[in-house]
Every structure is written in C-alpha cells, then in structure tokens.
C-alpha cells in the first residue's frame, strides 16, 4: 500500500512537469494553430542549458531558470520569425499540417545538433539537496522534485494571470479566438503571435530545467517529451493553463498506477493508448476549441 502511495506521489510530482511541458505547446497550438512537434527538443535544450550552467558555473538549477527562460524565449522569437511566421499565413488545415512537418524537421535538426554537441549520454544535475527527502509517515517526499513541482505550479499561475489580466495576454487570447477581429481592435497580431511562441518556448525551457534537475537529460528525451506534451494537450483540451496542468497531473498518476499494476515497462503505454483513444473519440481532433 505504501509502495503504491509512494508511486502515486512520484506520479504527481512528474505530472506537474508534464503539465508545464504541455502548457507551452498548448499555448502555441491554441493561439497560432501551429503544432510544433519540436517542443520536446526545446525542453531538451532547456535541460542542457541548466546542466551546463550547473556543470560549468555551479549555478543552482532553480536559479538557472532565470537565465534559461529568457534565452529560450529569445530562441522562440527567432524560430517564429524564421520558420513559423510563414506557416501562420496559411489556411487552417494546411497550417497545422505544414507546421507538423516543419516542426518535425526542426526537431530532427535540434536532436542531431544536441547529439553532436553534447553526445548521446544522459546527464543529470546532482545538487547537494538532490538525494534528500522529507519523510512523511511511510513515504518520502523528495525535496528536489517537490521544489520542482512548486516552481511548475508557480509558472502555470503566472501564465494564467498573464493571459487573463494583462493587456498583451488578453490580446493573445483575442488573437487566438479570432485574429481578424483582434487586428481590427488595433492589436498587432504578428507581435501577439511572436510573443505567444516565445512564451511557449520559455515554458518549454523551464520544463527542461526541472526535468534535468529531478531526472536526467539526453538528446533522446526530445521525442519522449513531445509525446507527453501532446498527450496532455489532448486530454486536457485547449484554452486553460490550469486545465492543462491538471491534465498533466492526471497523466502522471495514470502512469504511476499503470506501473504499479502492470509493471514499470508499460508505464509509457497507458498514456499513448489513452491519447489515441481520446483523439479518436473526438474525430474533430482535440477537444473542441472554445
């Protein structure tokens, strides 16, 4: 029983990261209708950023968020300008498809670059507090991952507040719903898109930092995390940062349960099958766009 509780706890902790990872993808897809399947690779790069900052400068990973996120955001802006700005000018169906292909090519490039620069080895950040845990009855709360969850929650709340309360956040939501009507209010839609993409990438970078901290990073995690993010977006639907986060936690728990019941080897399978079933149950694709 305690083993299950422990597994579930770890599932929740990991699920928070899934939620954060998905939030960036959800924002970009919801606003730009662009499916950036290189999202996982951006997470991977964020993880490497944190790793190298730690390895070379001894910078604590939670602090390196302050460096990685803006850099990731800048990278996002560049990627948008260079690649996806063209894609958003297409009509809806070709847009999603072309963005899939472009994202696919981008993912391969980033993956190959990472392998070349960092080798295929797994890297992990081992801070002094990394291994420690707080005992709570029979289960242990790993400190590093707990703080990661807290950071993820914080970022999601900040994202939500940004989208709901700030001028540009509302502009982004308006552009997501009806870009022409948004433009008619004086909103520079291209800037809104760039901002949304940059924020999405920054969130990916943040997720990467947390992944490197609590787990490990290697070029291979790119595809893995893209799939996770996609699964959560499909489960949770678009339109709510909090909803996406909850979806991530649900996936984390589902995986933990599946690992407890069927063995760790099939951990990934439950998410993928759930993903496919939900996708098919809604033939229009993702949960109906509000």
């Amino acid at each position, binding site marked *: 029983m305690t083993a299950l509780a422990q597994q579930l706890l770890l599932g929740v902790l990991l699920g928070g990261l899934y939620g954060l990872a998905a939030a960036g993808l959800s924002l970009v897809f919801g606003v730009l209708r662009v499916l950036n399947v290189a999202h996982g690779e951006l997470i991977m790069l964020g993880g490497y950023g944190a790793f190298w900052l730690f390895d070379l400068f001894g910078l604590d990973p939670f602090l390196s968020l302050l460096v990685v996120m803006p850099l990731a955001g800048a990278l996002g802006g560049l990627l948008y300008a260079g690649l996806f700005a063209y894609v958003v000018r297409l009509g809806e169906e070709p847009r999603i498809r072309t963005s899939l292909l472009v994202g696919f090519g981008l993912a391969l490039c980033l993956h190959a670059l990472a392998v070349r620069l960092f080798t295929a080895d797994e890297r992990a950040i081992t801070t002094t507090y990394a291994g420690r845990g707080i005992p709570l009855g029979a289960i242990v709360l790993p400190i590093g991952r707990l703080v990661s969850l807290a950071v993820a929650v914080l970022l999601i709340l900040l994202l939500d507040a940004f989208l709901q309360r700030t001028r540009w956040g*509302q*502009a982004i939501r*308006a552009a997501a719903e009806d870009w*022409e009507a*948004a433009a*008619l*209010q*004086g909103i520079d839609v*291209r800037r809104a898109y760039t901002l949304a993409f940059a924020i999405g990438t920054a969130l990916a970078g943040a997720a990467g930092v947390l992944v490197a901290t609590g787990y490990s990073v290697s070029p291979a995690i790119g595809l893995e995390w893209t799939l996770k993010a996609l699964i959560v977006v499909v489960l949770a639907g678009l339109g709510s940062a909090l909803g996406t986060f909850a979806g991530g936690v649900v996936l984390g728990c589902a995986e933990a349960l599946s690992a407890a019941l069927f063995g760790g080897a099939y951990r990934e399978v439950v998410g993928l099958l759930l993903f496919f079933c939900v996708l098919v149950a809604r033939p229009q694709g993702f949960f109906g766009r509000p």
Partner: protein
Amino acid sequence: MLEVWQLDAAYGELRALAEVSVRVEPGEIVALVGSNGAGKTTLLRSIAGLTRPRAGRIRWRNEDLGHLPPHKVVERGVAMVPEGRRLFGHMTVEENLGLGAFTRRARGERSASLARVYEIFPRLAERRRQRAGALSGGEQQMVAIGRALMTRPALLMLDEPSLGLAPRVVEALLEVLATIHQTGVAVFLVEQNVRAALGLAHRGYLLAHGRVVGEGSGAGLLGDPEVRRAYLGPLALER
C-alpha cells in the same frame, strides 16, 4: 478624408471589385448598398487592411493605406465593425470593450471612452460582466459597435450591422449611429437594408457585381424609382 480610387480586388480568380471609387468627407454619413455578393464586404476589408487590393488606391487623410496591416489602419483612426459582429465570446462585455482601447492613442482615453460607450448603450453597463457570447443579437451588435468606438475612430465603418436584427432593434441602431455621428465621427455604412441605410445617410453609393452603379444623396437615391424597383421590390413602387 477617405478616398478610394479605382479599387480592384479579387479572391483567386474571382473578381470581387472593379474600379470602385468612393469617398467619405468629414462629418458625413455615407451609405453603400447592394445585394449579397456585390462586393460590399470586400471593399470594407480592403480599406481596413484585411485584404490586399489588386489595383487602385486607398487614401485616408492624404496617406496611402494600401499596404498597411489592419492594426496600423486602426491607429490612424479608421475602425470597422465586421459583419457578424465577431466578438470574443469567452470574454466579458467589459473585456471586449477594453480590448478596443488597445492602441496607445485609445488607451490614453480609455475610461472616458468606456463611460461614453455605456452612456450610448446603457444596457451594456448592466451586462458588463457577462460573457459576450451569452448576449442577444442586438446586444452583441452594441458591444461590437462599442468596441469599435473604443478605438477612438474618426471614421466608423459598419458591415451590415442590421443583419439578423428585428426591425425595432434596427431602428434603435440607426438612432445610435446618428448619435455617434453627432459626436464628430464620420460613418460609412454598408448595408443590404437599403431603406434603413439610405434613410440615414447624407450620401449613398450603389454597388452591384463589384461595380459602383449609382451615386447620389441619400434621399435622392431613396426616391429614385429605378433604385426602388431594383432594391426595394415591386411593392415599394406602390408607396
């Protein structure tokens, strides 16, 4: 003030506008009437910057609008209320209106603009925290017009505002437009409802198959038997 000169627009192979020339002077209410598919929406979209014309010129206060993106057109004082209202359904009335004051120029006078909108549309003040998508057609039209007013335009363009509204609501709408006009905003009204539009306007244009086929004063056009027959139906001749 607004001068459209020999405008040509097309969607792929389909020619939507051919050599269209219209103008709106300060302080005028100008109507553009025509049936479905005449090209009315295309004209407004071209002026607003949503569609790029193939040929011709659009000048606003002596500046060429031709290649400006929509948000820059708004910055210069030309606002459009699009066909079908196109509100941000998930946001509240107040949020919708607030977004209208997005440009720097409009932002500065945001509270004043908002107060004025609620004055013109008291019903919106009551509903300010409701989701825009939950409002009735007439109320949504109010929000759409209010939202455009929030941009502090010198020219307000409306694309078929009476569509889907009951006659009583349309009358109220026309009164509102007259009120707005009195505050110094020029109005460019595009309509299928010929009687309503020409009844309100100082001047009018007739658009058919993408071409301007008539021009004159509002009353003049309305009284013209040809116009009445073409647009108001056989019964209209009886009056």
